[in-house]
């Protein structure tokens, strides 16, 4: 028998032949005598495993959790009734409403970030505006991105449906403001900023965008930025900044936008300067340190992989995660340098 053709090798590997099949026997026999073909079989195996690994890595977790079969039967039963005229529009409100509440949280978060510590506006600092400029336009149905309300704006009915949630979020924020009144009134002031994005953010036209995109992306000043990337994960935007440390290692920072936890709003009421001082050029170091002390949480990276330290810093409206192959204390020190 001549050498085994590559397609046959793959078919053989994939169990396409019954072992008693003549072709399978002939291949097995040839492989027993031909070191070349055995090597090629191993090469084919390597290729097959590599392709499988690439594909296996490419899926979100929990994808294959099947809803109960009964649900399917219920849906079929529902089909016997005439279908609603706009199935797709009817399905949209939930993610949209969710996106709208997130959009609000981000607006407040980025605004408060500016209040709490106006970061250096030095040249070369990455801004959200720059990142946004390079960001691919999301498709309408990927409506969970923070700007989803805007993208989905043409669908007026869905947008209308999406309105109630942000109000709820706004109410929550107002409750938080009320809670913060235990502090002296001047320190509560940031809850009612003059030119800041409106609390009642319109989901269809995120007014927060205009102010948000001028904000610098949090990073350690003075370290070269190697790369920035933006992803939308769970409907929240995550920005990753890679910076080069002096030793040549890479520091990774993730900035993940989050809904604001109540107590974080209250604490920010103490940290942030009064509204009248919004233009104050430098943040006082004390609030930053207090914030860091309050917020820093160090965890070991998953065992088995690189021995990286990971530090999490929750801030108002977003969460910083830092990772680098350096001691945790050094990483915490770096985290404190982020304005």
């Amino acid at each position, binding site marked *: 028998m001549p050498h085994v*053709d*590559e*397609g*046959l*090798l*793959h*078919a053989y590997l*994939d169990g*396409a032949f019954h072992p008693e099949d003549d072709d399978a026997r002939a291949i097995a026999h040839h492989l027993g005598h031909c070191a070349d073909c055995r090597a090629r079989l191993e090469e*084919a195996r390597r*290729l*097959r495993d*590599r*392709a*499988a690994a*690439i*594909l296996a*890595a*490419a*899926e*979100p*977790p*929990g*994808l*294959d*959790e*099947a*809803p109960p*079969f009964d649900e*399917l*039967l219920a*849906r*079929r039963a529902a*089909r016997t009734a005439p279908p609603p005229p706009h199935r797709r529009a009817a399905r949209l409100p939930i*993610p949209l409403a969710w996106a709208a509440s997130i959009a609000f949280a981000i607006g407040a978060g980025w605004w408060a970030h500016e209040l709490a510590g106006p970061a250096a506006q030095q040249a070369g600092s990455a801004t959200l505006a720059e990142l946004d400029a*390079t*960001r*691919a*336009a*999301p*498709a*309408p*149905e*990927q409506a*969970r991105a923070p700007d989803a309300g805007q993208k989905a704006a043409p669908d007026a009915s869905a947008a209308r449906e999406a309105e109630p949630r942000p109000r709820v979020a706004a109410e929550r924020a107002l409750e938080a403001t009320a809670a913060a009144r235990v502090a002296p009134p001047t320190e509560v002031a940031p809850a009612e900023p003059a030119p800041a994005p409106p609390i009642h953010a319109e989901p269809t036209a995120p007014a927060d965008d205009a102010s948000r995109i001028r904000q610098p992306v949090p990073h350690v000043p003075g370290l070269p930025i190697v790369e920035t*990337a*933006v*992803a*939308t*994960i*769970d*409907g929240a935007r*995550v920005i*990753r900044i890679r910076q080069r440390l002096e030793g040549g290692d890479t520091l990774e920072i*993730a900035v*993940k936008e989050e809904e604001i936890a109540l107590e974080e709003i209250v604490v920010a009421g103490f940290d942030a300067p009064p509204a009248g001082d919004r233009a104050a050029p430098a943040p006082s170091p004390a609030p930053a340190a207090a914030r860091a002390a309050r917020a820093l949480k160090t965890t070991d990276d998953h065992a088995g992989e690189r021995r990286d330290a*990971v530090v999490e810093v929750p801030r108002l409206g977003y*969460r910083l*995660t830092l*990772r680098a192959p350096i001691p945790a204390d050094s990483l915490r020190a770096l985290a404190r340098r982020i304005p």
Partner: protein
Amino acid sequence: MSVDWAAVYRSTYGDLVRFLYRKVWDADRARDLAQETFLRALDHAPESPRGWLFTIAANLARDEARGELRRKRHLTLLRAEAEAEAASPPNPDPLREIERAERIAAARRALDELGERDREILLLWHAGLSYREIAAETGLALGAIGTTLARARRRLAEAHDALEKKHAAR
């Protein structure tokens, strides 16, 4: 001949939704299409339920892709798929999530380098269909499937390597 669809659903749902995900690259849409596939299948009793499901799924994904083409946008940045909120831990490490997003984006771009038929056959194989089932579903000769898979796997691996190199060089 009747089909125990409940059993087929249990054994096939995962493979089917994964197959669909790698066609539409959106977890929620893949789930929707998987449900739709089963809904369309329930009232039938095909000889090979599994193969039949994948045929329906491939057609649905193709229709979906046609709609997608109309609003085609180029992907310059990675985008993760929104996951079911319930399925994800409350505070997952965003750096890891972004890495997963990159893996997904890389696999997607590598798959895009394949010819349509090669990609289809690779995904069907990866979804657990046998050579015989693939041949039945695609009309490709049984003897050609190994060759097609060999080519698809090589191209996928090469495209993926090239992307990694490009990424590392940045």
